[in-house]
């Protein structure tokens, strides 16, 4: 099955977010690990850049004002597909 551009950006966001989530949990029990904090902050930057790109093309990734509605004329948040429908 060929992946579209949207899915490809989402996969990259997922990969960085997974790394950040893993480091987040690790840091909860190792709050003094400087190297892990540095890695965490590196991933945060990557995620921010990718999210910005995604939201410019496809609308908000997060609700309640945590991502912009790029289209001036139409509310993009309700656009299909929703995550449970991605097939």
């Amino acid at each position, binding site marked *: *099955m060929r992946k579209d551009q949207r899915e490809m950006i*989402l*996969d990259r*966001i*997922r990969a960085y*977010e*997974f790394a950040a*989530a*893993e480091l*987040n*949990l*690790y840091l*909860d*029990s*190792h*709050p003094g690990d400087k190297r892990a904090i540095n890695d965490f902050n590196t991933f945060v930057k990557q995620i921010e850049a990718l999210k910005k790109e995604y939201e410019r093309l496809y609308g*908000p*990734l*997060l*609700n*309640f004002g*945590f991502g912009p509605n790029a289209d001036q004329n139409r509310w993009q*948040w309700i656009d299909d597909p*929703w*995550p*449970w429908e*991605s*097939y």
Partner: protein
Amino acid sequence: MWIYEKKLQYPVKIKRPNPKMAAAILSQYGGPDGELAASLRYLSQRHHMPIPEAKGMLNDIGTEELAHFEMVGAMVHQLMKGASIEEIKAAGAESWYTDHDRATWPGTGTGVPFTAAYIMSKGDPIADLTEDLAAEQKARATYEHLIDLADDPDVIDPLRWLREREVVHFQRFGEILNKLYEWKDSKKYY
């Protein structure tokens, strides 16, 4: 508060309906060792944790479990969507169809509704973290049972991923339990 992120934590793309597998997997949605129970357990217990590491860990793993609840829901939905009446009858899922059509519902595939009796929030940090360690192992075992039952790679792949998360959470909760013992000892001597 919580913000919704419009994506799954790990992709679920199941092409073939399978009501029998849906009924088995539903247990991880609203069953005794399921993701809903896990999330509610940790998010309730976090309030009375005495050290920052424990508050953070229960808050964050409780949040991740909600993302897993969503993934399991997507799996069940995709396994039921498009199933024919013949497939539903062949799978023995008539009672599911009678009460829910093909809908996702927080309970087990045998019709047992979700209950808070699955979880405990004792108010004793060491007792609660010890429960959490057991909960992660029980969820891991459940995912292994589901992997044994599954034959579709589209189903096995996310199940394997979810199983792996239980192993990581067990590790992290173990670190927190050790810190709670240290905290308890430090109180004793000062």
